[in-house]
């Protein structure tokens, strides 16, 4: 399975010249906690609600500073056609909750959420366990030994 196949939620982005106030408003309206920062189509950074709190609010930055002053860059990203196991490796080796997905030329495609991956894995496990449970719960009726 490819990484792109596990993007469950829409991605939302803003330009680097937007203010942190606008970033917070877009997060609120779109219901996401991570925004891609896009410059001329390319992913140049990501900014999270946590970044706004720790890098802006906690440091008394004015709300009209540019979002690229508090974004995380460079971005850890995965190619859209990479195998999903590569995404697992990235989550294992980086302290991330969301992983940016880009296409072959570096354009942003979306985000993979660790939460969503865990939900998918739990669902997959449940599907695998179901036939085992049925086998255990249902009495086995072997064929009788044929009379000779």
């Amino acid at each position, binding site marked *: 399975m490819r990484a792109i196949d596990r993007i469950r*939620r829409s*991605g*939302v982005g803003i330009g680097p010249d937007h203010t942190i106030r606008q970033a917070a*408003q*877009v997060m609120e309206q779109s219901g996401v906690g991570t925004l891609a920062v*896009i410059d001329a*189509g390319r992913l140049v950074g990501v900014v999270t609600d946590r970044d706004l709190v720790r890098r802006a609010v906690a440091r008394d930055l004015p709300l009209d500073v540019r979002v690229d002053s508090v974004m995380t860059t460079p971005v850890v990203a995965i190619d859209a056609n990479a195998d999903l196991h590569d995404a697992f490796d*990235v989550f294992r080796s980086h302290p991330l909750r969301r992983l940016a997905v880009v296409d072959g030329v570096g354009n942003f*495609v979306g985000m993979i959420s660790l939460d969503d991956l865990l939900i998918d894995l739990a669902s997959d496990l449940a599907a695998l366990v179901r036939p085992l449970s049925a086998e255990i719960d249902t009495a086995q009726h072997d064929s009788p030994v044929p009379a000779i």
Partner: protein
Amino acid sequence: MRVGDSSHAEEAAVQASVGDRIIVRGHRAGEPDRDAEIMAVGADGGSPYTVRWSDTGHEALFYPGNDATIQHFEHGKRVVGR
């Protein structure tokens, strides 16, 4: 850093036009759906879309996922009323 580079990009399956509306499904119980108007589209009607959220009119770039549907409208068609 980028993992698993590939030379061929996937084409976005979703096509939209300016003036269409995007509905984003709420992800948690009680979370309302959100909607936005498409103000600009990428090449060949694909993403990213520049959208304007209906709540407050702020604009953002939108990359539709499985949680989004697009409502198409017949552009240029005038409804004649009485």
